[in-house]
């Protein structure tokens, strides 16, 4: 911890943007070099603060995309009516400075000691904290079996598409709006029949993490509980249809 940091306080700090990588047409990953950053846990957030020339400030919370011990990274989706994400997704460049604080959160987190089996359920950019969990599982050498069900609008909207096929985990995609020619996978919103086919049976006592738009999270969490998952084994994170 830095000598000037007050214990228990959450201090804003300046980070340098290391690199910017396009994930899809609307999404990019930004690596951040933050000198006083404490090690985070997979699933945690950080807050970004932008200050305009006239002093107006806007803050938003973003999931950390990297595993503990890896270079700090966030993955940001551009929301056209947002205050913060258009700047992060369109204008920010390597070498720029960004004000952040964190890491934040102790509920929607996973480490190898939490065990499994893991059921990861992502809607759109809800994949970001779950990707951090997959990376942490790999980095820690965890042998906990994992399944990921990932709902995207189209194949081109799938974030981390190449990377996800490289994990020792079952990865199932559903494409809700458009499918490539010859697509044989799911082509609808997640429903209870799909959950029953993809999710671990309730008897496996799996640990479920559900992240996405509010309507996605409600549908999935309700469905899992109906399949017999205890509510306390279904951890949820909702980011709303309009972020920022």
């Amino acid at each position: 911890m830095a000598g000037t940091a007050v214990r228990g306080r959450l201090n804003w700090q300046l980070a340098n943007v290391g690199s910017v990588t396009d994930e899809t047409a609307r999404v990019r990953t930004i690596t951040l070099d933050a000198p006083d950053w404490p090690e985070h846990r997979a699933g945690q957030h950080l807050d970004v603060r932008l200050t305009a020339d006239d002093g107006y400030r806007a803050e938003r919370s973003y999931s950390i995309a990297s595993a503990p011990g890896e270079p700090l990274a966030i993955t940001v989706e551009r929301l056209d009516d947002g205050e913060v994400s258009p700047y992060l997704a369109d204008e920010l460049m390597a070498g720029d400075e960004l004000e952040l604080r964190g890491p934040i959160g102790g509920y929607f987190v996973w480490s190898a000691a939490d065990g499994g089996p893991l059921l990861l359920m992502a809607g759109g950019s809800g994949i970001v904290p779950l990707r951090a969990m997959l990376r942490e599982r790999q980095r820690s050498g965890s042998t906990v079996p994992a399944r990921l069900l990932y709902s995207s609008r189209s194949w081109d909207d799938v974030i981390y598409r190449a990377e996800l096929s490289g994990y020792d985990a079952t990865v199932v995609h559903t494409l809700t709006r458009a499918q490539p020619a010859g697509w044989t996978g799911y082509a609808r919103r997640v429903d209870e029949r799909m959950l029953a086919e993809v999710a671990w049976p309730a008897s496996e006592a799996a640990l479920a993490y559900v992240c996405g738009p509010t309507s996605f999270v409600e549908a999935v969490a309700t469905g899992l509980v109906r399949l017999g998952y205890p509510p306390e084994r279904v951890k949820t994170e909702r980011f709303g249809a309009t972020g920022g």
Partner: protein
Amino acid sequence: MEPVDGNAIGGLLLSVFGAEMTAAVGTCASCGATGPVAEFVVYLRGPGTVVRCRSCTAVLMVFTEVRGITCVDLTGLANLTSPST
């Protein structure tokens, strides 16, 4: 305006309480429902931040910032317990 959940205000809560609070457990003073703060319903674009009960929609917490000072109203909570870390 579509709500988010308590995960989104972890930073605000950490700055107000000086501790990680998304895993803390709160009890609604109106209906008695109990759950982790992360599961509370959160409206971010108030004015201010309004936190509601997922069971009965009663207001649990309100945070407003006035001239750099955060005003906190917790009267909708019967109880708020932070897990020992």
